[in-house]
């Protein structure tokens, strides 16, 4: 029996494996942007630039930069930076993994350039993931070299007296969509942008500010949230919830949850039952008391979260009920029913009627779907025109048939009809007209069957109306034609 102590040095390969996250490029860049906010100088507004040009990513800010001592901590794995920076517990960075994880997700080589405020020195650190992968384990395997020198005019911080820049090269995704980054950052840092901070994304085509998205809600459905729960009402939840004008089968509904102004969870639906009928519910809440995982994707299931979950489930019951009611049986298109539902909602939450045009919610005044096109064109009304099997009567009369599928726009109150050319000078011609906007076709997918039935119906009627054939004989002819038609072409 004996015992011994083994030196337990994590393998430097960890630098590579921490980059194997499911973060999208936008989310990884968002993590670097979050670090910028921790470097805010007092209450100064920040100017953050994300440059995607030249096959590299540069995220730079005009914050206070990092001193030599702070930088030493920042480059260490899993160092809790909130212990060392001014913002303390309000800092977004807590786990000391954010920028390493995100940079490793984005590329194989990254650098930090930082100019501390009040100093004329610029510090520089670089990380080569391939180099780390090849290092043997050991006490010095994690060594980081910090260079310092005078500020230069040709680096990523050019033009900034102080601040920090992350530069990522050897990118994993060499074709990052700048628009996706702009859209994500606009949502993720909505609170910061709305209070004056600036986030700009540049690519080869220009520079674009991140702007929060404006959504269209049902007027009067926006409910403010300003509640407290938990021990001594210490858990403060602030924000709003509203009903979208449309249901979502794309999963893009629920709550965006922010912590200290940063999006930590998108489309969270833990507080109500996820269903198409509840898919109008959209809201935003600030929950600063939450912990966040080091990559800030998904909430930790803390006791505080469980308390909030129970509270918000109860709080949202009226709007869940309203979402179900308004999505049921065409109520969304009934102004009377909609008004009743919204009035009940406002009564439940004891809020005043916001009026017909809710704040930032209206892009148009009605709920009707946009018309496909206002111009007249064959493609807007006629879906297709095809030749059907010719009809040959017992006396040898040939009746060629075409079938046209088109919209009636309510003019003809029938699913199908016919047009018959019996002009003396012309060969007879039967045209079957299928009105695809008739309710009978909504949700159906057996186009071929519908064509056959419509043609059969037209044959039946034209034989009686125009050829004076007895209805029983016409019925038999029609059915024989259907059988022949079924033999000649497959039905869906």
């Amino acid at each position, binding site marked *: 029996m004996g015992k011994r102590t083994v030196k337990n040095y994590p393998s430097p390969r960890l630098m590579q494996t921490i980059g194997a996250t499911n973060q999208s490029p936008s989310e990884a860049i968002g993590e670097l942007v979050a670090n910028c906010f921790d470097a805010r100088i007092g209450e100064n507004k920040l100017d953050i630039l994300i440059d995607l040009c030249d096959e590299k990513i540069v995220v730079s800010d005009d914050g206070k930069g990092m001193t030599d001592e702070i930088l030493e901590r920042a480059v260490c794995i899993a160092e809790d930076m909130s212990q060392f920076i001014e913002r303390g517990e309000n800092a977004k960075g807590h786990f000391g993994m954010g920028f390493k994880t995100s940079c490793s997700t984005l590329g194989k080589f990254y650098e930090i350039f930082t100019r501390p405020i009040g100093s004329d020195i610029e510090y520089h650190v670089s990380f080569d993931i391939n180099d780390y992968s090849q290092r043997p384990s050991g006490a010095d395997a994690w060594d980081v070299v910090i260079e310092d020198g005078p500020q230069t005019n040709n680096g990523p911080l050019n033009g900034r007296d102080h601040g920090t820049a992350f530069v990522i090269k050897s990118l994993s995704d060499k074709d990052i969509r700048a*628009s996706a980054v702009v859209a994500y950052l606009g949502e993720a840092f909505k609170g910061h942008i709305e209070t004056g901070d600036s986030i700009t994304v540049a690519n080869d085509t220009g520079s674009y500010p991140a702007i929060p998205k404006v959504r269209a809600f049902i007027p009067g459905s926006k409910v403010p949230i300003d509640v407290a729960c938990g021990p001594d009402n210490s858990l403060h939840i602030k924000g709003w919830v509203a009903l979208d004008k449309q249901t979502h089968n794309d999963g893009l509904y629920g709550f965006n949850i922010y912590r200290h102004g940063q999006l930590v969870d998108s489309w969270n639906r833990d507080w109500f039952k996820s269903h198409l009928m509840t898919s109008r519910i959209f809201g935003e809440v600030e929950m600063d008391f939450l912990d966040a995982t080091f990559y800030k994707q998904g909430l930790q299931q803390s006791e505080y979260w469980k308390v909030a979950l129970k509270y918000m489930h109860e709080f949202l019951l009226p709007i869940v009920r309203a979402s179900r009611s308004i999505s049921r049986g065409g109520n969304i298109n009934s102004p009377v029913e909609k008004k009743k539902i919204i009035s009940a909602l406002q009564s439940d939450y004891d809020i005043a009627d916001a009026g017909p045009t809710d704040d930032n919610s209206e892009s148009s005044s009605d709920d009707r779907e946009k018309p496909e096109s206002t111009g007249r064109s064959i493609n807007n009304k006629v879906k297709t025109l095809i030749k059907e099997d010719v009809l040959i009567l017992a006396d040898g009369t040939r009746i060629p048939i075409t079938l046209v599928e088109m919209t009636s726009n309510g003019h003809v109150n029938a699913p199908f009809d016919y047009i018959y050319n019996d002009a003396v000078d012309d060969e007879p011609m039967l045209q079957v007209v299928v009105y695809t906007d008739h309710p009978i076709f909504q949700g159906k997918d057996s186009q071929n069957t519908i064509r056959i039935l419509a043609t059969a119906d037209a044959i039946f009627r034209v034989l009686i109306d125009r050829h004076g054939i007895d209805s029983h004989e016409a019925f038999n002819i029609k059915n024989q034609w259907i059988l022949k038609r079924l033999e000649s072409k497959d039905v869906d």
Partner: protein
Amino acid sequence: MGKTESLMHVREIWDNQNLTVFDKASDISAEYYTANLELASTAAYIGATPSELDALLSLSELDDDVLKKVSESNPPITTWMILASASDDEILAAVEELKDASQKRLTDNLESVEERLYTVMVQVAGPTPEQSLASIPCDVLLAMSKRAKDYKALSEKEINFLSSAGNYRRAGKILTNKQVKWVKDILSRLADAEVIKHNGIDSDQAMCDAALDALGR
């Protein structure tokens, strides 16, 4: 004039074989709308189907000079509805086609005049969204899959579907009706959410434009 008199007048015009399409359309629509007649009952009274009468009334909505040109080509009744649905340019192309149509009437194997007119008009109008989407380039579908992934705008199943549809097209196959329907739904939602838009800022703008063009947006 009462409704009964109006109906009789409409039937008289409808049955008159010597009137041009222009005269029929103008006179019947004037009577129909002045007397506030109803389509189904009027059609039954004059011995026409609702669609036949609706086709003539729709023709009357064309500008007079366009309707005159249509009328001069003496189009068969089975072309009225599609002509009335078309733009002026599409109609003028159809009228040209009608000029020699009398020699090419339908047989079992030849195109009917209705088919030929429709083909000519679609050529002028450009293909329908469904037709465009059925043959949408594979690169466009793959680029849209990448965008949806970057934006996290679709479910994983839908993103994978766009990729597989792209590979299907890469093999030179035309998308099936079901695939087209799904592609149309997905791309429409991406367009509604402004994940794809004209005048964007990304390197795949040409692909976005192609997707929007296929949707007819």
